[in-house]
């Protein structure tokens, strides 16, 4: 017996057709991409792997903006607080506000649209999964609104689940978009230097810096090895042979990296490495740095406060 306080909204089956048509577009684009990929595979130009080239984190650093002129120490600390505040919001309108703030900040920091799009694209799989699964799997509670199609009674689309997924998507995007204004607006070594000034242990900062540098080196190496494998006629398929080759490929990558590690470390010692990299940046805190930092912390706290104090009633329990 169904709980009487659950609102069932019956929709004619025509709605399903409309939704399917809407969904058909992205599916069509996806299939086309796969088709084009497999065709290019056939003409022995196998660019089957997606382009996993590693983006430069601080590509927008040489520009000028309010974010660029901001002391990285304040940037990192105040935005980290702001991020945690945004992550704790519970109401849909405030998630939307955080998202709009993020869009404005990206604009203000002069981050290229492409960079932001890439971040959102990386998130889209996760959010998409939530948007599809949550409405169908959330247990129905009293006060929920369920959409039911007349011909498919067993599929109950819970609007509360949809709203939950939507809020997660907005929050995740709001925080993801803010990554570039924080990390992308000063050269990466300067940001790391700021971390060291914030009493992050020196060893950890250096490890981040070294890892970041060698990612690009090993990625280059991995690509060269992949080219060599293709030149010898290797094609990725779903079979044991592919797994074996991949296993050897990874093993070779590790062997080379471990061997290189010794040489890199010896070279560092030869150049006088004593557990420290010389600092590259001088930091001087000015009033405006405190002001900007205060602004973001206040913004975060304001979002949380309004989340706790005001309760907007949205229709259909969104």
């Amino acid at each position, binding site marked *: 017996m169904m709980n009487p306080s659950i609102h069932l909204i019956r929709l004619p089956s025509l709605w399903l057709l409309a939704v399917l048509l809407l969904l058909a577009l992205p599916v069509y684009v996806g299939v086309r991409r796969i088709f084009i990929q497999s065709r290019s595979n056939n003409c022995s130009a196998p660019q*089957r*792997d*997606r382009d*996993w080239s*590693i983006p430069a*984190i601080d590509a927008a650093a040489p520009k000028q903006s309010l974010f660029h002129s901001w002391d990285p120490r304040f940037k990192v600390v105040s935005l980290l607080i702001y*991020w*945690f505040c*945004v*992550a*704790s919001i519970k109401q849909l309108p405030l998630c939307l506000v955080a998202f709009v703030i993020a869009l404005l900040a990206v604009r203000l920091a002069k981050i290229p649209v492409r960079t932001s799009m890439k*971040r959102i694209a*990386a*998130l889209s799989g996760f*959010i998409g999964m939530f948007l599809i*699964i949550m409405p169908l799997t*959330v*247990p129905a509670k009293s006060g929920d609104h369920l959409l039911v199609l007349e011909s498919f009674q067993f599929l109950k689309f819970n609007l*509360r*689940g949809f709203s939950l997924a939507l809020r*997660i998507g*907005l*929050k*995740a995007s*709001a925080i*993801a978009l803010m*990554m570039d204004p924080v*990390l992308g607006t000063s050269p990466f070594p300067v940001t790391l230097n700021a971390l060291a000034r914030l009493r992050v*242990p020196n060893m*950890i900062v250096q*490890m*981040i810096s*070294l*890892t*970041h540098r*060698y*990612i690009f080196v*090993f990625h280059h190496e991995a690509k060269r090895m992949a080219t060599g494998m293709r030149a010898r006629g290797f094609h*990725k*398929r*779903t079979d044991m042979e*592919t*797994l*074996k080759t*991949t*296993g050897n490929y*990874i*093993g*070779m*990558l*590790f*062997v080379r990296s*471990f061997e*290189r*590690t*010794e040489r*890199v*470390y010896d070279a*560092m010692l030869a150049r006088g*490495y004593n557990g420290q990299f010389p600092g590259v940046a001088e930091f001087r805190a000015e009033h405006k740095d405190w002001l900007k930092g205060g602004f973001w912390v206040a913004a975060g706290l304001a979002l949380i406060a309004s989340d706790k104090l005001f309760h907007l009633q949205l229709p259909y329990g969104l």
Partner: protein
Amino acid sequence: MHIADGVLPTSVAAGSYAVSLALVAWSVKKTRGDDLPKVAVVTSSFFVASLIHVPLGPTSVHLLIPGLVGMLLGNSAFVSIALGLLLQSMLFQFGGITAWGANSLMMGLPALVCGWLFERTKGATLLRHVCAGAVLGGVGVTLAGIMLALLLFTSGEDFLGVAKIALIAHIPVIAIEAAVSAFTVSFLYKVKPELLKTAFQAVP
């Protein structure tokens, strides 16, 4: 799969940050001091290896390799994985920055378990190495999947459906990862067996 921002309750996100930071400190302590720069360089190769995609029918999955990292680095694996995930979040947005602690636990704890078990089960022959590699490669992903499901479940019973499906999605990856780990271990055993003796370990 890495958890994005805004999914976990703030208490869980902050709590896992604290636990992860403590484990990073412990892991650094367990590594010979001079070797930390080397761990960093090796971390980059794990980062790159985790970008390798293996085809699975019409789609492809990328490797998670928590098991392999654990087998090769032992106790240093946690700091390596935590750094790798921090950079993945910063460069690619794989995993949210506020969920970094949770993601590090999700991958780092299985790596520690696998490293510990590998140390005790690898024996001396190629066959035993390969068997241990295969089993632990699978175990690493299984544990990571279970951690992911548990973390999602901390957000409330509404997330049970998502947690279940995320767990199911890990099953094909377990098989692939077990096979790849076995082949990688067998390759390393033949080519450079000293790598399988947990590098960088601090002598107690």
